[in-house]
C-alpha cells in the first residue's frame, strides 16, 4: 500500500456573509463535506463548476484559511487545527501554483528573488547558494540562467507559469496544489505546461492536487478524480472509471457537456437545464435535484450518502447501487 501524502476527512468551511452587532448572522457553506486521499506520486483532481468549492478546498489544505470542521493530514501531521505558528512543516511540504501567472508573481521582484523566495523563508542558505539553486531550477522548468535578472512582466504567459512552477518546486515539496494552472494559457502553451508538470512528477515523485474546471485537461493529467457540486464531492474514483462509467447524473452531464475537438463526434448533448443554485441558498436534500433529469421525491428530502459501489468508485446518489 503506497503512502498517503494527504488525507482529508469531512472538511467543512462556512463563511460569514452578513450580520454583526444588530443583524442576524448569515453563513454560506462553501465546503460542506469533502473527504479524499492522495497517494504519493499521484495526481488527484477536483473538478466542478464555479462555486462548487474546489478552490476553497485547496486554500483550506494550504491553511490560507482555517477550516470550520474536519481533518487534514499532510504527510502524517494533522494541520486542520494547528495554529498559524505551527505550520512551518506544512508550508515546506505543500506548495501552490496559481491560475493567473500574471497576478501571482510580484511585479517588483526579479526572477531570482521571486523563485528564491521560498528558500529565503525556509532555509538559512546564503544569497549565492540560493541563486545557484534558482538557476538550476530555471533549467529544470525550461528557462535559462540569463532570465534570472529580469522582471516577471518581461515574460510571456507560459513562461510566467514556468516561473510559478520553479518557485513551487524549489523547496522540494511533496505535494503541489495547482489551482487552474493552465486555464489562463493558450492551447499550444497549455500542453507545454501540462507535459512539464507530468515530467516533473516522474522525476521528483511529487503528488498533485489539481483543481480545474476543464475536464479534458483533468482527464489528461489525473490518476484519481473527485467531482464536486455545491460544496460536496458527488463522485470520486479512478480516472478511467469516472470517464468511462460515470455513475452520478451530474458527472454524466458534465462529461457530456465538454465540446470535443472533432466534428465527426457531434452529438445531441444532455443539456442540463437551469443555473447552478446560489450557495447562499442551497436546495434541500440532494443539492443537484433542481437540475437532475432523474430527480424524484426522495432527492428533495434526503441528502444522499457517499457509497462505495466498487473498488474504484464511490457515488453520492439515491439511485446508484
Amino acid at each position, binding site marked *: 500500500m503506497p503512502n498517503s501524502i494527504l488525507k482529508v476527512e469531512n472538511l467543512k468551511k462556512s463563511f460569514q456573509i452578513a450580520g454583526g452587532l444588530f443583524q442576524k448572522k448569515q453563513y454560506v457553506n462553501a465546503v460542506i463535506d469533502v473527504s479524499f486521499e492522495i497517494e504519493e506520486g499521484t495526481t488527484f483532481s477536483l473538478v466542478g463548476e464555479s462555486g462548487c468549492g474546489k478552490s476553497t478546498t485547496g486554500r483550506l489544505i494550504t491553511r490560507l484559511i482555517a477550516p470550520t470542521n474536519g481533518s487534514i493530514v499532510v504527510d502524517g501531521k494533522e494541520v486542520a487545527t494547528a495554529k498559524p505558528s505551527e505550520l512551518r512543516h506544512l*508550508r515546506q511540504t505543500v506548495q501552490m501554483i*496559481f491560475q493567473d501567472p500574471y497576478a*501571482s508573481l*510580484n511585479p517588483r521582484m526579479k526572477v531570482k528573488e521571486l523563485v528564491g523566495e521560498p528558500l529565503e*523563508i525556509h532555509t538559512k542558505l546564503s544569497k549565492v547558494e540560493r541563486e545557484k539553486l534558482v538557476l538550476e531550477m530555471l533549467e529544470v522548468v525550461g528557462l535559462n540562467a540569463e532570465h534570472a535578472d*529580469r*522582471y516577471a512582466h518581461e515574460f*510571456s504567459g507560459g*513562461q510566467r507559469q514556468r516561473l510559478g512552477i520553479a518557485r513551487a518546486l524549489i523547496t522540494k515539496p511533496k505535494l503541489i496544489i495547482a489551482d487552474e494552472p493552465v486555464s489562463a494559457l493558450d492551447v499550444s502553451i497549455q500542453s507545454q505546461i501540462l507535459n512539464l508538470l507530468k515530467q516533473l512528477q516522474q522525476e521528483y515523485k511529487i503528488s498533485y492536487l489539481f483543481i480545474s474546471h476543464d475536464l479534458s485537461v483533468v482527464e489528461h493529467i489525473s490518476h484519481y478524480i473527485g467531482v464536486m457540486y455545491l460544496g460536496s464531492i458527488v463522485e470520486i474514483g479512478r480516472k478511467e472509471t469516472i470517464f468511462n462509467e460515470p455513475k452520478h447524473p451530474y458527472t454524466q452531464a458534465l462529461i457530456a457537456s465538454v465540446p470535443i475537438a472533432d466534428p465527426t463526434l457531434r452529438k445531441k448533448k444532455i443539456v442540463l437545464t437551469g443555473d447552478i443554485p446560489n450557495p447562499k441558498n442551497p436546495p434541500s436534500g440532494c443539492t443537484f435535484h433542481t437540475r437532475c433529469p432523474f430527480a424524484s421525491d426522495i432527492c428533495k428530502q434526503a441528502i444522499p450518502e457517499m457509497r462505495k459501489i466498487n473498488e474504484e468508485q464511490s457515488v453520492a446518489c439515491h439511485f446508484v447501487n
Partner: protein
Amino acid sequence: MTSPTTVQNSQVQNTQRKYSPLKEFWKSFKKQKAALVASIFIGLLIVIAIIGPYIAPYDPFEPNYNALLEGPSASHLAGTDEYGRDIFSRLIVGAKISLMVSFSAVFLGLILGTILGLISGYFGGWVDKIIMRSCDVLFSFPDLLLAIAIVALLGPGINNVIIAVMIFSVPSFARLVRGATLNAKENVYVEAAQSMGASHVRVLWKHIFPETISELIIFVTMRIGTAILAASGLSFLGLGASPEMPEWGVMLSSGRDYLGTSSHVVIMPGIAIFLTVLAFNLIGDGLRDVLDPKIKNN
C-alpha cells in the same frame, strides 16, 4: 511538434532594452515641465539651506541702525528690516529652519503613519477599528487648531512645532497607507507569499509596502508644502521660533507693523513661503501624473 518540454528554447522578447524602473520614471517625469522647474527650484533651495551661512552677504543677526527699513537696492537685494538687518541674508539662513522643520515633521509623520496604516489595513478587525477611530478623532479638528493646541500644551519652540505638525500629519498618512494596503492585499502574489510560509512582517515589507510607495511619494511632497505653511503659521502666532530667529513666519509676523510704510519687509518672506509651497505642490502634481496607477493606466 513533438519535442520534450525541457529543451524549450524559450526566448524572452530580446528586443526590449534592459528594463529599469528608474529609467522609466525619469522618461515620463521629464515631460512634466512645471514639476521639473519646481524640482530645480527646490534643489537650489536645499543647497542654499545647507551652505546658507557661508554665502549670506550679511550677518543675519547683526543690526545696522544706519539702514533701517531700506527698500531693495544693489547693496541690499531684498532691503532691510526694522533693525536694519539684511532681509536677503535672513531669508537664506531661514530656508534651513523652514525646510528642516517641515522635512523632519513630515518624515516622522510618514514613518508613524505608514506603520499604523500597514498594520491597520493588513490585520483589519479590532486593531483596524482602534487605529482608524483614533485617526478620525484627530481629523475632526482643523489642522492648525490642533497644532496650536499641541504647542500650547507642550510650550512654544521649534521642536514642539515639529511634534505638532507631525501629529496632525500622522492620520492622513495612516489613512492613505491603509487604503493602499487594502488594495495591495488583494494581489494574488500576496496570497502566494502567504502560502509559501512568509511571515507577516515579510509579507508587509516585501510585498505590500512597495505598493504604497508611489502614493506616499506624491503625498509627502504635497504634505511638505502644508507643513511649511503650518510651521510658518505657528511662528507667526509666536508659538514657534523665537522672535530673533530668521524663520520666515517670524519675519512675516515682526514685519506686519510696517506693512503700510515698508511693505517689502512682509512681501519678501511672503514670496519665499509662497514660492516654496507652490514648488512642492507642483512637484507633487507632476509626480502624481507619473506615478499614480489610476492616472497612469489611461
